């Protein structure tokens, strides 16, 4: 009977999957890693600088990874155009600044535009195809990648653009370590955005509706949730997180070009897979881990030069998929019949 068949459901620790219920080795590993970083930072100035910079870049990867995870959780579509979308919205911000807006005015206006863009893409392009085939929708996102790239090159051209620095050029000196204000600034902006998105999901009725729609669309409709809207809003929020990632990636690279997000998309995929493709917390932690380790590996492992960063991230991605496909925080995929 129902009582018997229902007890061994494997998704028992969904809420735990956020953080608490993770198997001890993972959290131990993370704590040990953090402790190692701290010791390294205290012993070496270069190590400390690379770590802070790595965390800031990692937050950018994590933010884009979170965008990928949100879309994947809601619609089971991996959005290959997520990075290009982020790049395009960064161009929008550049354009707004050219038209006379201040950096932060342009920042928030861009987030709003990104939200609209994300929802419109889902409704107009992805959903009609997805109703027929999920893999078709994934292919549409690959097409979008090329389309967005073409549009940006057509509208703005391929040459470098320069944006004002959002955080100035101030340099902090902390116990003999010099740190550009840029990096803690990036870290703060990304983490605040991530926390706001998390709070939206965790504490609002809209967020509850979005989670319900992602987990169980049929049952959600039965309680009156407009599932279609929720999925579109999910794409919109993902585009907003991507825009934050793009806007914070630009100053770390010091200029804007159409390929801005392409390596970052690879790092974001590695981060998302490392964290577990359906774990939002995992995406952010994965991003930070990838960001810091890329920076340190290039410095301290002689065989890996900075040109090999992307291949290294790719190796992490493949390694995780082979050894632990669910990632650090993911739960095993259970297909419901």
């Amino acid at each position, binding site marked *: 009977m*129902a*009582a018997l068949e229902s*007890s061994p459901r494997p998704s028992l620790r969904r809420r735990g999957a956020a953080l608490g219920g993770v198997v001890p080795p993972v959290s131990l590993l993370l704590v040990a890693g953090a402790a190692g970083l701290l010791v390294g930072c205290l012993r070496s100035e270069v190590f400390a600088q690379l770590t802070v910079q790595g965390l800031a870049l990692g937050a950018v990867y994590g933010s884009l990874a979170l965008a990928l995870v949100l879309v994947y959780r809601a619609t089971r579509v991996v959005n290959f155009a997520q990075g290009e979308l982020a790049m395009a919205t960064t161009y929008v911000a550049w354009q707004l600044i050219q038209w006379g807006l201040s950096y932060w005015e342009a920042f928030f206006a861009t987030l709003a535009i990104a939200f609209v863009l994300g929802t419109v893409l889902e409704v107009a392009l992805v959903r009609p195809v997805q109703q027929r085939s999920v893999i078709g929708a994934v292919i549409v996102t690959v097409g979008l990648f090329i389309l967005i790239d073409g549009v940006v090159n057509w509208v703005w051209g391929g040459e470098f653009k320069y944006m004002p620095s959002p955080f100035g050029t101030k340099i902090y000196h902390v116990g003999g370590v010099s740190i550009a204000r840029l990096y803690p600034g990036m870290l703060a902006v990304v983490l605040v955005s991530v926390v706001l998105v998390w709070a939206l999901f965790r504490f609002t009725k809209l967020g509850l509706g979005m989670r319900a729609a992602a*987990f169980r669309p049929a049952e959600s409709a039965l309680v009156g949730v407009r599932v279609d809207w929720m999925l579109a809003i999910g794409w919109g929020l993902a585009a907003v997180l991507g825009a934050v990632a793009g806007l914070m990636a630009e100053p770390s690279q010091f200029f804007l070009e159409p390929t801005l997000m392409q390596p970052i998309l690879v790092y974001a995929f590695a981060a998302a897979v490392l964290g577990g493709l359906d774990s939002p917390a995992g995406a952010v932690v994965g991003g930070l881990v990838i960001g810091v380790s890329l920076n340190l590996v290039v410095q301290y492992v002689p065989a890996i030069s900075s040109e090999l960063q992307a291949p290294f991230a790719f190796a992490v991605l493949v390694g995780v998929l082979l050894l632990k496909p669910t990632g650090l925080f993911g739960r095993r995929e259970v297909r419901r019949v």
Partner: protein
Amino acid sequence: MSTLLELQDVEARYGPVHALHGVSLAVEEGAIVAVLGPNGAGKTTTLRAISGTVRRSGRIRFAGRPLHRLGPDAVARLGVAHVPEGRGTFSELTVWENLRLGGYTRRGSIQPELERVFSYFPWLSERRRQDAGTLSGGEQQMLALARAFVHRPRLLLLDEPSLGLAPVLVAELFRIVRELNEDEGLTVLVVEQNAHLALQAAGAGYVLEAGRVALSGTSTELRADDSVRRSYLGY
């Protein structure tokens, strides 16, 4: 009493398979109506046709409004709560979040509804932070019902509420449904294998066979009918 729900020649199918061949039935406002019938007769599909979770044609009117073109979320917002067979719970979410989803269509505070539900099922209050997936099958069934009560629907569609529940719980559940019906005029359309129970709670009933209404009447009439007695009551 006015008619709250009316189905006329409703057909439904899953792909090429016809599940309903023109079902007509009516539910008066404030009534409890049972749907009986053997497996595969179309009982579940009838409920699904009403809530919009299966493709259907024919006329369905709820409170004077046509339903047959509406999707499930729109039907839910009109005040129809459908508790599907088996587990209709969101096992990935906490007990409290499940209840909150029950009140999704309601504006403003759902505190009074929550308190009422907690008075029926005190254990829900104690375990509100727990993942619904960690509840037993019977508990999940109760949670699905509690969620529907938080919705405060005008029409409650119950599919096999007794399935997998201990007899004590089944009796308790039907007691609560009757209480809500008497106190608040909740209208209920219930599909139930246990015809005894269903006809005890319901004022009227329909017997479906092979996707059609084979028989209908008040509970007293149905209980007195020889074929119903033989097939569903077992004496």
